[in-house]
């Protein structure tokens, strides 16, 4: 029997067609992977199923019945649960409160009673949580378990999991898979979104691939392979292959020593981090999301002040400098989230000029002509598909990222800090960005590449440092690194 059937789903946002005539079937009792590149429309499709978006066109059947899903309430009633990519928990409430939120008929609320109920459910489903803890005190892994329990508590028969492993270390991933397999035996059907082909091959029964918002096809796991899936996803077989020759790296230019910083939720988001990096070198910083990458990016780019430690650029202390002064000192940087690192309401030219306003000021007045001309130059050089007066907001992600790169690199910085530079970019843009980073290295810059994409790290870096719970677990030359070795470091083992 089909647990879910989605027929002819289309959805657009403004000018973007996120889903176009998508067909998707979930059998009862299977784990079904939804695969696709960033922006392929996976999340959108699932948000439609969960009632967070309304499809422009298309029909949804659940257990054979045609459903009108207007809101998550309808979806929950139909037995659909979702663990979203970005957790939807209320940090100031307890685990129990979060789990019963929106799902209790009782008018009154007894903390004790709900905690008991949640604890009982936790045992019944084998998903362990501490029901009286405040969510804001939980780790990401714990939060995810709360999300899963929240769905199961609502009697979900169909569980959507949007990139659940992105925030987990391998051991946690194993635990998650065990639970999923057990739950499936007890009648749960699971839709599992992931970018990681090996995970898909491990745990799923069938795979549906989306590309550019369209269904490419559905295959049985047994009848496919990682390579075939990859080809379905991307539409071609090319992967960036950086020919790695052992080259000589230059002088040490950038030195981080005993860096400690506090984050929003943890006291020590970064704990005594030290590394150095040379000219003509790319240092990759790997790690599972949430282990301090954001804080490291913020500290290195001058947005967050460290509580302790030093950063030296060519021997000069820069850890207390403002972002503006860092630029002056010879640092180029790209933000973790290009939407947050740029200003959508300003024009492309203004965004490009923003980092270096002194250079564009004549007699205290903005030199509009120079801003415009330089923007044209950079647009040309970085192949940005836009004109200087376009609002940045109207650019696609790839072009936005190119603007960011143009701004950061055109001053030929000595050090480049690139954080998640290809997140959410399609293959073409990704290739461009990676090529650009390698060119920077070859030009003589020291490049720090912070990325959660291990393949990217392995492909670009000369050395790899692994970040785990705010500490550097080890720095390995890429020539000696294997995915297994780095994976163990990322999991905090050894």
């Amino acid at each position, binding site marked *: 029997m089909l647990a879910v059937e989605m027929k002819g789903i289309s959805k657009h*946002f403004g000018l973007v067609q996120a889903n176009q005539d998508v067909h998707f079937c979930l059998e009862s009792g299977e784990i079904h992977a939804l695969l696709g590149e960033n922006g392929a429309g996976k999340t959108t499709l699932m948000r439609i199923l*969960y009632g*967070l*978006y309304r499809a422009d066109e298309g029909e949804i059947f659940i257990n054979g019945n045609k459903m009108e899903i207007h*809101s*998550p*309430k309808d*979806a*929950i009633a139909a037995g659909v649960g*979702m663990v*979203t990519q*970005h*957790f*939807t*928990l*209320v*940090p*100031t*409430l307890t685990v129990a*409160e*979060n789990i*019963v*939120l*929106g*799902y*209790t008929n*009782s*008018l*009154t*609320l*007894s903390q004790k009673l709900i905690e008991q109920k949640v604890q009982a459910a936790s045992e019944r489903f084998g998903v362990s949580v501490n029901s009286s803890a405040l969510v804001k005190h939980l780790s990401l892994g714990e939060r995810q378990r709360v999300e899963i329990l*929240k769905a199961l508590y*609502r009697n979900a028969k169909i569980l959507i999991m949007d990139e659940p492993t992105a925030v987990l270390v391998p051991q946690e991933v194993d635990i998650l898979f065990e639970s999923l397999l057990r739950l499936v035996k007890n009648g749960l059907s699971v839709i599992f979104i992931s970018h990681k082909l090996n995970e898909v091959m491990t745990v799923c029964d069938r795979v549906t691939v989306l590309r550019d918002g369209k269904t490419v096809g559905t295959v049985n796991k047994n009848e496919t392979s990682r390579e075939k899936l990859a080809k379905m996803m991307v539409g071609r077989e090319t992967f960036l292959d950086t020919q790695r020759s052992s080259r000589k790296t230059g002088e040490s230019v950038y030195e981080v020593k005993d860096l400690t910083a506090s984050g929003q939720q943890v006291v020590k988001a970064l704990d005594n981090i030290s590394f150095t990096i040379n000219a003509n070198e790319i240092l990759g910083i790997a790690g599972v999301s949430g282990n301090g990458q954001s804080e490291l990016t913020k500290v290195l780019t001058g947005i967050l002040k460290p509580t302790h430690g030093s950063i030296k650029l060519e021997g000069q202390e820069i850890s207390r400098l403002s972002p503006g002064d860092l630029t002056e000192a010879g640092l180029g940087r790209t933000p973790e989230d290009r939407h947050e690192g740029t200003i959508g309401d300003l024009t492309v030219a203004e965004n490009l000029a923003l980092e270096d306003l002194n250079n564009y000021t004549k007699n205290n007045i903005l030199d509009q002509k120079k801003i415009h001309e330089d923007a044209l130059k950079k647009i040309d050089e970085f192949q940005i598909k836009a004109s200087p007066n376009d609002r940045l907001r109207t650019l696609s992600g790839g072009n936005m990222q190119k603007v960011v790169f143009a701004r950061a690199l055109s001053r030929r910085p000595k050090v480049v800090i690139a954080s998640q530079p290809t997140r959410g970019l399609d293959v073409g843009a990704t290739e461009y960005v990676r090529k650009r980073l390698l060119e920077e290295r070859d030009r003589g810059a020291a490049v720090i590449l912070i990325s959660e994409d291990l393949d990217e790290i392995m492909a670009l870096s000369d050395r790899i440092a692994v970040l785990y719970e705010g500490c550097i677990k080890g720095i390995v030359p890429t020539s000696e690194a294997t995915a297994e070795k780095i994976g163990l470091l990322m999991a905090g083992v050894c």
Partner: protein
Amino acid sequence: MDEFIVGLIAATLRVATPLIFATLGELFCERAGVLNLGIEGTMFLGAFVGFTAASMTGSLWIGLLAAAISGILSGLLMSLLSVRLGVNQHVSGLGITLLLISLSLFSYRIIFGESKIPPSINSFDLLKIFSDNPVLGPIFSQYLLTYIAIAIIPVVWYILFRTTFGLNIRAVGENPEATDAAGINVYKLRTSALMIGGALMAIGGSFITLAQLGSFTFGIIAGRGWVCISLVIFGNWHPIKVLLGALLFGGVSALQLRLQLKGLKLPYEIFLALPYIVTIIALTIAGRNASYPAALLKPYKRE
């Protein structure tokens, strides 16, 4: 106990009554993530509608009910603008205050004409408990609404912290995305918080016309709504602490009047400005720890 103290306590409760109602109303709105600067106007509207309905029907209770309904409507208007349409909350709140005050004054003229003596009603009588006791008697010689105001505080606390509805309100003020994903209609929830809030604000305003004065005049609210805004912050969004703030404010204004009569020459303005100054100091001390509902001022849009 000293008669001075007894009188002071009684006056404190009386002055605090409209503030307690309206501050709890604002608390509901802010806990749900909406800063309702329409409070001053809603109180004014409540004072006007309560009085008008009571004077037309001769029933104070109908007046009170009408005031509450007018407050609910004001909440709905705020909801339409700031929740449904997602308009900037300060601007829509200030606009609503301006609208409701001028609309009340306009309607007052249309309904009551240009009266020489302000039309009046027989307002609520004092409800005396412990009337034999020389100390408690005068303190507990209050209007029914004052007792209700005090009684409603634990009720609001209970609703917020011990009911499902309260849980939903607290959740939506902190993280509307999560609340939405939990299957709760964010718009309806915020709208209901604004309606309850509006009703409480309007009842607070109507206390002045229906109980305290029995008549409606132009300067009737005289900035009390802004005091309530600061009391919510002063009380750190907690109903019990809000009561303390309201009593402090009531106490200061009652004390000021009494010290004047002792012949003490005090710049009374300092007293009147005190609650505002204290709130700023409280904010300074709490600083970034002030527990603003995280989603306050942020409109929620699903797409």
